């Protein structure tokens, strides 16, 4: 407990880094130095996280590392930091993967004129995300929650002169505001009912609270989680968020920030478990997002948008895990997904640079021959995501799917298996289109197009034989290794988190058995069945994709109606524009153009005109004799006063 101040360093160092870099950028300091500063701050935060985790391990299973900070002047509301099983698990991934992506960015963004600004914002994100996961109450979490939103806004809009980036940034923040309204109202209900917003006060009491309160809180918190984690139906911002630089997509919009919703559900699990509607709603959102994301990914042609919908789908698995009570499995999948999805995005960055900024996978191909390093790292990431043993995704995803069966929800289980098949299909499609077949130059040549076009295509692919620079290579290698061995890490458990002891004292709900389902994976027949099925659908899905989009792919034909709809994200954007955005704008326009000038001010002017006709004095005022009017009023007052004084 003596070293609990180390907790402050985890958000503190990146915040300091962000401030220094911002100041340094203003003072035109050396760019490489500022980038190094950003990387160092996050690395030190990672070291601090490891030290906190070691302290926690010493205190586990029932202890935690706590650092109270400031009261907000109202009982039960204030800030502090808490290192326990859940928060240190998240913080390790946030700072660890965060550091790797900082390194990668140092190379990837090297040519950008706003290089220092990028690191300031990236450091700010690590700060906010650390606050989100380490806060010891809902207020601190809300501060982190909102500020990762700001970081996301600033980084999606990093190339702010581009109209598409500006629009995407606005959309992401706005959708998340809708979610935040849920969080704020949830916090208000909790404050009223529990008299506190600290986890240690609220969560143990949750088991004994009235059901309607719990239902309300659970659904309100879920609204926040759904928005931040890009789950159905508030997922619409995530594909657009790919307007941000690729390292941002890797860190914020794949590995860490979008899992904040999962963090919230697992952190507040006593509420979700005690609320009758809590877990079913979470599971429903989860499975819906698994299938929706996977289907939409099928129709995408932008490499980053495929990965974005894949993220939605994979976070859906985490939500599903939490929703069936398999919290450990959900946390586990968060970590493995962070490894392989960050790997895939960073790999996509290499691919995009190789093709001279092109992101359309239909215009790619044949990268395997010229770029074996990119080929192998991307392949391992893909297979880890598909869930092939012994790669990381196999263990974590299977633990979730088995958890669904163990929780007695065969329908969710079956749909989750279907989702795995779709996952294999869209990922292998992506992989095959980018890495197999002929390169665009060769393809152009074979199509018999003139030598000029072939030369132009070759021009676009300049540097294809240039080796990947070490700053990019190291993170890719480390993430590849983590994607391979990540499945052998010990699954986190929830003993010692706020509310767990009280929950355990109650009759252990079936969900708790599901939580350990991962460990008994190979012992139970249900698990064996699940594994066999998952492998089968993955092989079938992946095989079909390879056959269709692999080296012997058929010439491209017109897209079917379904693929078109999937490509358009099943028209959610159009729906929201028609149902929310346009009516809101119209209402505002009505207020601004009609009500305000004509109704309210009109009434005021009417009164003034009426007065003017009744009184010459007022007319003089309106022609500018205001001082005289003031004097007259004061005189009138004086007369009234004197009258009263004399009369009384």
């Amino acid at each position, binding site marked *: 407990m003596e070293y609990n101040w180390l907790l402050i360093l985890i958000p503190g160092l990146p915040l300091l880094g962000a401030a220094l870099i911002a100041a340094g950028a203003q003072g035109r300091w050396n760019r490489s130095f500022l980038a190094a500063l950003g990387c160092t701050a996050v690395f030190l935060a990672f070291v601090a996280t490891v030290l906190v985790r070691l302290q926690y391990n010493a205190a586990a299973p029932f202890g935690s590392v706590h650092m109270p900070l400031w009261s*907000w002047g109202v009982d039960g509301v204030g800030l502090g930091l808490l290192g326990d099983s859940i928060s240190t698990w998240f913080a390790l991934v946030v700072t660890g993967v965060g550091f790797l992506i900082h390194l990668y960015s140092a190379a990837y963004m090297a040519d950008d004129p706003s290089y220092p600004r990028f690191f300031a914002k990236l450091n700010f994100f690590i700060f906010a995300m650390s606050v989100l996961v380490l806060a010891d109450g809902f*207020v601190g979490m809300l501060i982190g929650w909102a500020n990762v939103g700001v970081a996301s806004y600033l980084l999606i*809009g990093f190339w702010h002169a581009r109209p598409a*980036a500006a629009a995407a940034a606005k959309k992401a*923040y706005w959708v998340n505001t809708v979610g935040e309204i849920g969080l704020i109202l949830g916090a*208000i209900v909790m*404050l009223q009912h529990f008299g506190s917003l600290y986890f240690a006060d609220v969560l143990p009491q949750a088991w004994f609270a009235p059901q309607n309160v719990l239902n309300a809180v659970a659904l309100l918190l879920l609204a926040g989680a759904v928005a931040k984690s890009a789950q159905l139906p508030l997922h619409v911002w995530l594909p657009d968020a790919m307007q941000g630089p690729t390292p941002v997509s890797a860190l914020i919009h794949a590995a860490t920030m979008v899992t904040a919703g999962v963090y919230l559900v697992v952190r507040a699990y006593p509420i979700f478990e005690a609320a009758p509607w809590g877990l079913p709603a979470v599971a429903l959102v989860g499975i819906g997002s698994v299938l929706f994301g996977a289907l939409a990914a099928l129709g995408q042609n932008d490499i980053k948008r495929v990965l974005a919908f894949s993220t939605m789908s994979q976070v859906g698995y985490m939500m599903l895990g939490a929703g069936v009570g398999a919290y450990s499995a959900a946390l586990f999948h968060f970590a493995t997904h962070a490894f392989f999805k960050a790997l895939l995005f960073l790999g996509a960055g290499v691919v995009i640079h190789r093709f001279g900024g092109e992101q359309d996978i239909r215009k790619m191909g044949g990268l395997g021959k010229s770029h074996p390093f990119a080929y192998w790292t991307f392949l391992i990431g893909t297979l880890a995501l598909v869930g092939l043993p012994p790669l990381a995704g196999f263990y974590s995803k299977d633990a979730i799917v088995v958890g669904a069966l163990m929780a007695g929800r065969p329908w969710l289980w079956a749909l989750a298996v279907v989702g795995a098949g779709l996952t294999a299909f869209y990922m292998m499609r992506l992989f095959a289109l980018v890495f197999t077949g002929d390169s665009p130059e060769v393809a152009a040549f074979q199509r018999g197009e003139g030598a000029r076009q072939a030369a132009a295509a070759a021009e676009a692919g300049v540097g294809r034989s240039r080796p990947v620079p070490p700053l990019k290579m190291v993170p890719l290698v480390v993430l590849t290794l983590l994607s391979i061995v990540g499945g052998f890490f010990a699954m986190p458990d929830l003993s010692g988190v706020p509310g767990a002891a009280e929950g355990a004292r109650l009759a252990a709900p079936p969900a708790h058995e599901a939580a350990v389902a991962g460990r008994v994976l190979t012992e139970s027949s249900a698990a064996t069945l699940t594994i066999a099925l998952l492998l089968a659908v993955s092989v079938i899905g992946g095989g079909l994709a390879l056959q269709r989009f692999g080296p012997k792919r058929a010439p491209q034909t017109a897209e079917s109606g379904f693929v078109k709809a999937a490509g358009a994200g099943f028209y959610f954007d159009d729906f929201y524009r028609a149902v929310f955005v346009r009516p809101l704008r119209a209402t*505002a326009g009505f207020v601004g153009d009609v009500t305000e000038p004509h109704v309210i001010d009109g009434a005021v002017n009417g009164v003034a005109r009426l007065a003017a006709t009744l009184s010459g004095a007022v007319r003089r005022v309106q022609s500018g004799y205001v001082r005289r009017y003031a004097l007259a009023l004061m005189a009138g*007052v004086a007369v009234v006063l004197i009258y009263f004084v004399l009369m009384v």
Partner: protein
Amino acid sequence: MLLSALLFIPLLGGLLVAFFPKERTREIKSFALIVSLIPLALVLAVWRQLDFSLPGIQLLERAEWIPSLGITYQLGVDGISFPLIAVAAVVLPLAILASFNIEHRVKEFFVWMLVLQTGIYGVFLALDYFLFFIFFEVSLVPMYFIIGIWGGERREYAAMKFFIYTLVGSAIMLVGILALYFGSGLEPRTFDVLVLAEQANLSPTLQWWVFLAFFAGFAVKVPIFPFHTWLPDAHVEAPTGGSMILAGVLLKMGTYGFFRFMLPTFPDAAKAFSPVLATLGIIGIVYGALAAMAQKDVKKMVAYSSVSHMGYVVLGLAAMTPMALNGAMFVNVSHGLISPLFFFMVGNVIYERTGTRMMDQMGGVFSSAPLVGAVTAFTAFANLGLPGLAGFPGEFFTFAGAFPVFTAFVIIGALGLAVTAGYHLWMMQRVLMGQPVALAVQKDLVGREVLVAAPLMALVLLLGVLPGIALNLFNEPLAVLAARLGGM
């Protein structure tokens, strides 16, 4: 003596400025700034002397003035007035600093700015209705001239509208004050605010009428929907220094009137009126936000956002629970810091550089002037209530405190946050992002502008992380007030 010094030093300074030669504009500006900084130093001294664990008035300064009419010169502070005085003491010098680019009739301008300050401090310090009313009116006249002489194109219309609105409101309030004076049943009669709050024995009917008369005066000042239409015009036309004071300080006179006079003196009428007040508050929040969203003029957008934010204060006042009152008071403070910063950025920085207030003619500030863009974005996020900055705690505690009383309104108000976020985001998209346009902001912030923005930004950040600093000032008096109102 401390409070009297605080009160009259700006007036004295204003009189001294009148003796400066007209052409010595630099000296006039510097002198005005120094004079306006003295109250800030005195406020710090007052802070050290106050005990915020006590609910009552402290540092009382009292002298007989017109004994035959029961009029006294009486000043004092407590945890309700002190935060507003402190905000004024911060914002007023910064408004003067922001006005250093005034080149037209410089001497007069700074005389009015200093006279205005005495009016403002007087409103928050006076504990005698007669004295209060004088300051309430005194604060009106300088602002009329500041808008009317140094304002934009439609300055005369705006100044007149502002003046007539406020004057009509305060005239009705004056009738209320007189009715309270004569109807209190106290012998001898008195204008003493504290005595009247404690001992006035008004008949229920009279209490109602007096309450409504006060409401007329303060509702215009806040402004409460639908008495707000003077505000966008006044803000748009006022010079930046004037807008800063108007939004940061003058509006708070209205809500202060509720805290200091109306709720303690007419608790029964206030309770009976509270559903109406809450309804007007929630309409103000949502309607103000919608109107802000409709604006093409960025200064007008900020003006309507003030209408929306003052709606929170009104909702909190109507709910009357300790937490809601705390939240309302906190919004007073936070809006008192954020809105001057916002007006400074859009008025003094962006408008002065581009010559336009129309958002569709702006663009690309992030690219052409990064610091201007960063500070404007910071302000916008603070204003939309980002947790971690000062806009959030007040909103949160207002909603949390009002939730048990006006549950449906709080839900509507929370949904209104989406509109609030929407117009800020849209503004940033149009003004800050995109390609720099022909009228782009070319020059980044200069030293003087940094000096105006930095203190406000620091306080906005500080109060966002540690709202307890402010809440602990007024926790105790508001708890007493809530108990008097029979709240929870």
